[in-house]
């Protein structure tokens, strides 16, 4: 990527400089931004449809139209595909390795939004071969990276500013994920939670536009229920919440097991000699194929069909539990071996199986209490999402968006919160961050970023401890008041409601140059103290201190009323205390 990026930098150098562009076409980038967001959405949507069709075709060609235990092709297909994919990744597409989420974050934070065309093509081909031939991985994360890559290419083609170029990666990522998952709101939230890390009004509109455009394209082809059919969702009895709490605990523990397994195996396989990297995906494929060959072909590939069947109550709870466990094993093997493919679908698969298992168990033993099994499977998906991927907001909205039913919000929040807290307390570092550290990168932790406490002016506010005088007060009286109060400054309230913070030296200067009966407002400089309110970020105050000895903090409803004052010492002390 670095070599490609260097070429791009040279091209950029040949183009007009940004300050030239700002002069000759100041609003060009802004205008193009929204138009390109739609283009990116449509292109990502089309590419993701092709990607999924390619995966399905490869699956039918390699595993047959109905894989079942005992077929030797279940062993052969993922093994051979592993060899091919490893060769492609090692020789031609090294950046296609992995899921795609961290690679997109790296593009955003390290490479100024640059994702090469080769990476996009490589990701498309290698992930399609791997997933289609039965590796236990999903297409969502690669779709996210493909979308981000498309966005990066488009933005480069239009020679947008570096700042804009960086913003396009998450826009494309949201489009790719939205098309793959057929859920625009969840995709947007995921990109905000896991890629950008914070709400940014500058990019939100474009993300929404591109995500919706891509979903419209995807739905035009696949219909509204692209991945699985959405079952009826009901909460029949409040006592069901107990079962959902159990699901939350089961999900939290499963997420922990899954994270630990990946955290243990992935670095060990990566640290092996380089030549072994050519065979690791094949060996993983053989082991995953063996799981299928000896009884559980459902764990091969993304497993959407199996999720659909589980949601519609086609399996007994014992089989569902077995499928969840084998999926954890199979995905750990496939992902740790460096095979390109995503973690979304396996996470959803494990969650759906666990949820359906809890639902089926309850349905069998407490039939009068239970809602639909599908509701449990859906909540289970959200639970694993919260526990394993650590995207709590996305996990809740994903279930609500996919089910289209808000009556399930209480079980979702309950189960997801339990899973999230459990997973977080037992595994403090989120899985994407674990991967980042294993790869030797230093990307910002989204979980920490989300929870950063931003200081506000109210955090450094102190009661008014300096004299407050009207603008008509004579200078003589002002000097006397200041001396008697022994304050370093005073506040002057002017006739129009504005404020002026006057230092002791300023008062002294005015007393020397003007007569004692002159109103103090005549001695003031033309500027006025800034209008600051308690809820504004504390760092907003910093650049005012060279000019003002202290800052009056106003009440938003009544600007002539003071909430307090802040001084530079107060602000610095507050930051030091943090």
């Amino acid at each position: 990527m670095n070599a490609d990026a260097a070429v791009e930098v040279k091209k950029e150098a040949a183009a007009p400089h940004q300050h030239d562009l700002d002069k000759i076409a100041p609003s060009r980038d802004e205008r193009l931004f929204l138009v390109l967001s739609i283009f990116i959405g449509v292109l990502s949507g089309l590419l993701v449809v092709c990607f999924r069709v390619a995966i399905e075709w490869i699956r039918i060609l390699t595993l047959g139209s109905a894989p079942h235990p005992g077929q030797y092709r279940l062993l052969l297909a993922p093994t051979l595909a592993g060899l091919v994919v490893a060769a492609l990744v090692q020789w031609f597409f090294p950046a296609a390795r992995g899921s795609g989420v961290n690679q997109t974050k790296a593009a955003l934070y390290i490479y100024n939004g640059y994702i090469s065309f080769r990476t996009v093509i490589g990701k498309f081909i290698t992930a399609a071969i791997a997933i289609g031939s039965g590796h236990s991985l999903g297409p969502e994360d690669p779709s996210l990276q493909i979308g981000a890559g498309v966005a990066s290419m488009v933005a480069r083609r239009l020679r947008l500013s570096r700042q804009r170029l960086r913003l396009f990666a998450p826009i494309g990522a949201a489009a790719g994920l939205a098309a793959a998952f057929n859920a625009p709101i969840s995709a947007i939230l995921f990109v905000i939670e896991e890629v950008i890390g914070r709400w940014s009004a500058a990019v939100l509109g474009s993300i929404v536009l591109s995500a919706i455009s891509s979903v419209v394209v995807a739905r035009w082809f696949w219909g509204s229920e692209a991945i699985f059919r959405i079952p009826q969702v009901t909460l029949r009895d409040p006592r069901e919440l107990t079962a959902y709490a159990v699901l939350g605990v089961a999900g939290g523990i499963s997420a922990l097991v899954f994270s630990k397994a990946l955290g243990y195996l992935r670095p060990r396989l990566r640290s092996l000699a380089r030549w072994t990297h050519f065979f690791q995906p094949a060996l993983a494929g053989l082991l995953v194929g063996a799981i299928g060959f000896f009884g559980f072909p459902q764990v091969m590939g993304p497993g959407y069909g199996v999720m659909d069947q589980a949601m519609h109550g086609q399996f007994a709870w014992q089989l569902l539990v077995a499928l969840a466990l084998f999926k954890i094993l199979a995905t750990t093997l496939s992902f740790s071996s460096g095979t390109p493919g995503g973690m979304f679908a396996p996470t959803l698969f494990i969650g759906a199986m666990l949820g359906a298992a809890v639902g089926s168990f309850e349905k069998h033993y407490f039939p009068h209490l239970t809602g639909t099994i599908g509701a449990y499977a859906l909540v289970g998906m959200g639970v694993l999402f919260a526990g394993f991927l650590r995207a709590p907001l996305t996990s809740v909205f994903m279930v609500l968006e996919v089910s289209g039913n808000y009556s399930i919000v209480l079980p979702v929040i309950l189960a997801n919160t339990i899973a999230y807290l459990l997973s977080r307390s037992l595994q403090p570092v989120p899985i994407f961050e674990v991967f980042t550290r294993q790869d030797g990168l230093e990307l910002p932790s989204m979980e920490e970023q989300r929870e950063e406490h931003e200081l506000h002016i109210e955090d450094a506010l102190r009661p008014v401890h300096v004299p407050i005088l009207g603008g008509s007060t004579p200078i003589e009286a002002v000097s006397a008041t200041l001396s008697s109060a022994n304050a370093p400054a005073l506040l002057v309230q002017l006739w129009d409601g504005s404020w002026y913070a006057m230092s002791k030296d300023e008062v002294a200067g005015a007393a020397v140059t003007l007569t004692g009966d002159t109103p103090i407002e005549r001695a003031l400089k033309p500027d006025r103290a800034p209008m600051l309110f308690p809820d504004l970020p504390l760092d907003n105050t910093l650049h005012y201190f060279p000019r003002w000895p202290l800052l009056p903090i106003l009440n938003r409803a009544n600007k002539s009323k003071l909430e307090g004052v802040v001084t530079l010492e107060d602000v610095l002390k507050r930051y030091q205390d943090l």
Partner: protein
Amino acid sequence: MAVFELQPPLTAEERLHKRKLIFRDLISLSGLFAITVVLAVLTWFLFNSFARHRQELAQRWLARGQAAMVGGHPEQAVEAFRSALEYDPAQRQTEIKLAMALEAADRVVEATSYFNTLLETEPGNGIINLELARLSARQANKPKAIEYFQRALDGTWQGDGYERRRAVRLELARYLLDQKDYPRARTQLLIAAGNAPDDPAIKMQIAGMMEEAQDPENALAIYRAVARQKPSPVQSFQGAGRVAYSLGRFALAREYLEQAVNHPDFLSEPESVRTPVRQMLADTIDLLALYPESDLEIRERADRILHVARIAQARLQACSASKATSVASLADLAARWQENRATLTPLTLARDPQLEQTIMNLIFDTEKQTAQACGAPTGDDALLLKIAQSSRSVEEK
């Protein structure tokens, strides 16, 4: 406010740059549009080809599943139907077939779970409720089974719902008969009979089940109704004769049994059916030969009464003699015979109809009590006991 800010004028070179920039952006956007269109067309072809292939696969696996079910391989059918659903998921009929295959493969828990899920989306579906009723019956859950049967009856059916509901009702009745819940079975059979079309086969089936439900009167009514039709099946005569015989309506039984035996189809009936019919007819003829029918001449009736009285007395004597100690009931009977000895002449009986009845009652009491004291009789005594057990209905038609 930026809107009102004055922009410094562009130099000639900058204006040229700006024009070039606009031109380049237009070219880039046009290129982007062209790429989008080309990609859309390619995607459309790729997707349609794929969608067609999925449909073909769905049809292929559905056909394989059906063939496996017909061939008695439900496990294979389960896999085939699952594959069919993977390629064409929202096919309710395939889903139901899959659930039925699971049931046939003895995967009762999975089948129940699946049917329950299907039921949640379509609570009024007749076939799903029926299958759940069958599964509950297999799991010996009678209340649930009856509930699901009832929901199936009230549910919606594709095709001829009227016929399917009748079949469900008869299946419910059969289940209740197997559970020996005769009163509920009778209720269902009466409703089924009331709604049954004019089809002899169905009526015969209902009548047969009514016999099992210990409702011979209604069974007889249906057999007779069928027997009145032209052409009427031989089974209707056999059934009517058999039920009339069991009800003690021997005159009627003889009538139907004779028609059955003389029916052209009777000889094509299996031997296991023909023999009991013939035996029943022979018994009926012998029995009616002993019975003093009301339409006989007075003298002839008196002779028959005397004849059966002698048979009964002989039975009493033989029974009393077989007992080592005196049995009170037998002694009482002997005393009653002793009292009526003087009246046992044809002339006395011919003159006094009341006496006829008294003697006949004594004969019936003798046969019943000797049967209790000395066991089941044989020969004429056995016939007389049958008459005694249904003395009021022998001649009823």
